[in-house]
């Protein structure tokens, strides 16, 4: 969640409390079908390669969670220093780089051609930012219950807009929820971002758990994608929409060029 959302969510804390007194049940909803949409996930980092681009299709809501890969597409990544590479398909729907090395400061362009249509996204890799410390904090959730979470502290570079994405693993299991932050009203300060276990998964940090945190420095376009991807869950808004992709051409997905640092901590 991002900071602005924390404030909004906190303000709506009461709804959460009241919904405790409510009931949930699975229901049948008659949903329309949609034609399969192209989904592109592309990443390039400042770590040693290879990097992957995954192409898949969307399915109807009532179908199995089996997303058909797209084979035979032409996938090309180029940078603003004159380098460029066409990624071969290493497994159905997955295209992997061979020699390309991601460098902070460069602007990368991903061109995907499927059925003679080109879809393009541009992302600039920011400079990496280091995590200063990871600490385990406690948050009380009422009625004597407390929950633990990890807090990352890092010094934000002053004078530029910085956007961050956090990916964390608990005991080597990657957590799926989206944690992003930016230096809004915090430029040049030591920012504290809380990294909580996925609410959906009902996971609690126990003594001895190892948490590895990767902090990605991303650009604005990727940040906007993840912000709106989170909101597409539909809980906050009565009229959810598809996330703001940084691709042209009306495809789903994103292309992210990011620099990453990491740290780990064991729960005492």
């Amino acid at each position, binding site marked *: 969640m991002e900071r602005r959302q924390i*404030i*909004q969510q906190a*303000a*709506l*804390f*009461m709804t959460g409390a*009241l*919904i405790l*007194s*409510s*009931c*949930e049940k*699975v*229901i049948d*909803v008659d*949903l*329309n079908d*949609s034609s399969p*949409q192209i*989904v592109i*996930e592309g990443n390039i980092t400042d770590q040693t390669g290879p990097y992957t681009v995954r192409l898949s299709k*969307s*399915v109807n*809501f*009532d179908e*199995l*969670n*089996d997303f058909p890969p797209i084979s035979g597409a032409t996938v090309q990544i180029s940078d603003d220093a004159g380098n460029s590479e066409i990624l071969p398909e290493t497994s159905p729907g997955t295209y992997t780089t061979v020699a390309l090395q991601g460098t902070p400061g460069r602007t990368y362009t991903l061109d995907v051609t499927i059925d003679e249509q080109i879809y393009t996204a541009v992302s600039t890799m920011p400079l990496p930012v280091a995590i200063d410390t990871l600490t385990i904090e406690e*948050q*009380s959730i*009422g*009625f*004597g219950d407390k929950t633990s*979470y990890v*807090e990352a502290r890092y010094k934000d570079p002053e004078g530029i807009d910085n956007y961050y994405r956090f990916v964390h693993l608990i005991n080597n299991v990657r957590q*799926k929820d989206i944690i992003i932050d930016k230096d*809004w*009203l*915090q430029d040049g*300060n030591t*920012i*504290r*971002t*809380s990294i*909580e276990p996925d609410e*959906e998964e009902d996971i609690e940090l126990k003594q001895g758990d190892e948490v590895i945190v990767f902090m990605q420095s991303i650009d604005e376009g990727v940040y*906007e994608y993840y912000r*709106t991807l989170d909101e*597409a869950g*539909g*809980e*906050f*808004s*009565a*009229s*959810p*929409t*598809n996330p*703001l992709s940084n691709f042209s051409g009306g495809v*789903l997905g994103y292309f992210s060029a990011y620099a990453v640092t990491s740290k780990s901590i064991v729960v005492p």
Partner: protein
Amino acid sequence: MKILFLNVFQRFGIPLGSWVIVFMILSGLQANGQDDVLQGKVNLGTKRAPARVFLEKLKAVEGLHLSCNEQALDLDKEVNAPAEVITAREVLDLLAVNLNLEYQFHGKQVILKPKATTPSKRRYTVSGYVRDSATGEELIGATVIIPELTTGATTNAYGFYSVTVPEGNYTVIAQYMGYEPQSFKVNLKQNVSHNFTLTEESSELGEVTVTAEKPNENITKIQMGVEKISMKEIQDIPMILGEKDVLKAIQLRPGVKSAGEGSSGFFVRGGAADQNLILLDEATVYNASHLLGFFSVFNADAIKDVELYKGTQPAEYGGRLASVLDMRMNDGNNKQFGVSGGIGLIASRLNVEGPLVKDKGSFTVSARRTYADLFLKLSSDDDVNQSKLYFYDLNAKANYRINDRNRIYLSGYFGRDVFGFGDELGFNWGNTTGTLRWNHLFNEKMFSNTSLIFSNYNYEIDIDLQGTEGEITSRIQNYNLKQDFQYFLNTQNKFKFGLNSIYHKIIPGIITLKSDDNTNELDISHRHAWENAVYASHQFKPGEALSFEYGIRLSTFSVLGPGDFYSYDSDGNATDTISYSKGKFVKTYFNLEPRASISYMINQKSSVKASYTRNTQNLHLLSNSTAGNPTDLWIPSSNNVKPEIADQVSLGYFRNFNKNIFEFSTEAYYKYMHNQLDYKDGAELQFNEDVESELLFGEGRAYGIELLLKKRYGNLNGWIGYTFSRTEKKIAGINNGEYYPAKQDRMHDVSVVGIYNISPRLTLSATWVYYTGNAVTFPSGKYEIDGKIVNYYTERNGYRMPDYHRLDLGVTWLKKKKSQASRGESSWTFSLYNAYGRQNAYIIRFEESESDPSRTEAVQTSLFRWIPSVTYNFKF
């Protein structure tokens, strides 16, 4: 013989005057003989009939010898008598007035003949106030009629009426729902001031005179599209958690939809929640919800009168497109002190009122508070026992009648919702309003009211949670000078004119974020605006059947500095920033808002009405949710945001049955709206200096038909209402620029309310509501990103929530009743919300299935099933 004498002497030029005197003396001598007969009672058998029927009744009176030239008279003319049994003299006067006759006594004969010359009749005014006899409260919208002339008036918002008619003998009757009518006779030869004091109807069973005809104001009044909510009705209808609520009662009327389970927000004729102007003693209330909507901010104890105009508001109102909810506070009992209140499961109320100077001035103070948080203090957990969760409301009013022509009022409302969780989170919000008013009577025809009004809504958030430490504050305020004149020329013509000048100030958000190193602040550009309106309207009743009201309102809205104003390109990038200094005009919008309505009475039982209104709106609420949050932002019109405009036409048919005991009405409307707002995909509406770049503009249209069958009298009363409606928007950038349903579009809406007085002490009530779901966006597909399943959306608002229905039951037991011996009253009310416990959908989420990870599913969350409550009310 006498007439012959008269003519002879006229020819001789002797002044007629002296003969008139002789004539009068002679007729006076003669009249004695007729007097006894004329005092005798005549049973007319009906209150309304053609003149010939009454004439026949008169002719049948024993000892009365009537003579008239019937051919010369319009005996088919419908005549209204003040009562079914009146004296013969009164019947004579009645016929004389209606057929334009004069009568003379000629020996034992009474001769009726047309008035020889009709000297221009002088007109005089009967005026005054209609009040409750027990408390002195002025009654708003009471009718004052003169049946002999089939004409009358209604009292205005301050209980004042003025009726100007030709001189003559009349009965003037004042009536108001729930009170015994009162009449007085007047021989109108000069202006008369008369105040009515009405007593409440006794609720003894069996005394309810079902046989007598009930008033038919819904047929006669010009205004259509208006719902008047009686405070008695609000007392009887069962409501969630036992709290009597004005806004919840309004949601049960046709054309008004609730914004969702437990919400205080409402939609009128397809309009959005911010398109309703909510007024409390003329002050705007920006957020009418407590505890996220389960209660409104209006304590029913303090409210006297509630009227909802469904877009058909007359020229004296303006500022919002869909409706005006005009609420007036009680003035306070000016005869004796009284305390009343109630203790409920969630909140308790106390009301204290009494005279400041007996019969001249009074005050009233009403307070209400919840106490859910008192239970939190019992917890051993520090975070919990330091937590706060409460709201309070305080309504206060004082008034003083300086003299017969001047009266002043001071009223205010203060309310707050407070939520705090340990040290980590503090959140409070609320409204403050204040109104100072001066009623002035220039003369018995010209009423004036001057008001100075202040209104403020703000919220504050204090947060120290998960690495975020800071404060946020936001507010919207206005200062308002309002002047209204009402000129009651005569019963055919009433003029209203006036002006309203409002200064708005909005602080969209001051955000302070702290970190270990320093504190940074963001103060989003404050907004200032000056809104003005002048209006004039004329209510014209040329005859008995036809009446018109037409008027015009000229409104202006000026955006003022200081501040930075931006222009944006289509991608939302700021292309231009212009700074304006304090008081400079950035942009001014002018709008002309014509209003017209016409009412035609087909007969005493039915009428048709039609109206056209144009409304504009210059304050817009940006909200991501359907019902609204306390942190939603109000923005004024600007160089980027144009005023919203709505044109509404409506047509209605009104019909009463069974001596006006049953009222049936149907109204159809069509509304077209300009400059409607919607948001770009992924719009950031909060704490965004460039929030105007996130907006999309377009058109809207709404249409529908409302049916209502109401029974207001008898031991079983209530109503059944049904509304069919559609409301759509067409916005460039959404749905390919095609019409799509607005979020609040709900096709069918049914409300059934029944109140049954089993005995004088026991009342049962039931409410059943049913509505088809509002428009929502559901996914039409799914895909995978980073190992997570993501919903894919196609059409905006292309789906519907499931149907909603619910039954509420209530029982009120009047434990102790008002009597001669003691004023004390107490009652217990038990209610059950959602009596059959239906799980109505509040939110539907689409997510990975818990039981089968290879699939996704829809999960519905519903809020309330059976919710019982008990309330104890007292009054003394």
